[in-house]
């Protein structure tokens, strides 16, 4: 359901977003174990940081950033996205990250304004 547009003029650069998101996740939760008291702060911090970095790129897009953090206990987790938009100029990027105690899935959606 996700579509990636790489290297096209006027379309979303998902590779750039991928690097931004990975860096935001690493700097927020890298090295920590899952903690119920902290997880609220972490998810808020991840989405805020990603959004700030994306807006700094100065491109004519609206952005939606979603972050899901789940404790590793062997439970099954399934996420799916579907988008009704202009595939030529809009795009998304999903990053899956994990450490010993938690899984983190961050999705960035960019919707063109121009």
């Amino acid at each position: 359901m996700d579509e990636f547009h790489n290297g096209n003029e006027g379309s979303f650069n998902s590779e750039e977003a991928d690097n931004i998101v990975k860096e935001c996740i690493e700097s927020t939760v890298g090295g920590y174990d899952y903690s119920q008291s902290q997880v609220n702060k972490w998810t808020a911090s991840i989405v805020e940081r990603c959004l700030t970095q994306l807006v700094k790129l100065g491109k004519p897009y609206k952005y939606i950033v979603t972050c899901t953090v789940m404790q590793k206990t062997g439970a099954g987790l399934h996420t799916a996205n579907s988008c009704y938009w202009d595939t030529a100029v809009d795009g998304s990027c999903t990053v899956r990250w994990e450490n010993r105690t938690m899984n983190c899935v961050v999705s960035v959606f960019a919707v063109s304004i121009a």
Partner: protein
Amino acid sequence: MKVTIVIILFHLCVVLPLKEKKKHIRSFYFECFKTTIGESSYQHSRVNQWTTIVIEQCLGQLSSLRQPFKYIASCVIMEKTGAGLQAANSCFWDNSTDETCTVHWENSSMHCILTVCSMAI
């Protein structure tokens, strides 16, 4: 544009303010979950199909409204084992025209969270 931060606290079940149109849409989403999943137990082999069906029904219904909006639908299904789950959204858009709607549904073996964002063209 303004930055809107919507933090969904899974274990507190935040209730979003309802307008008439939203009420109708939210009950449609609940109905999607009931008819697609119902009382089925979590099954790894079927969960992909469930998320696909729910999302396709939701986007189908929204696109049939023929309004000048782009839509993003996101569905999360998690097996109930006592694990903690936290989800958050943040949006950089036009607060006067764009909005989001999140629905949490559950049965005895799984939690489902559906988030739909609509953005004016």
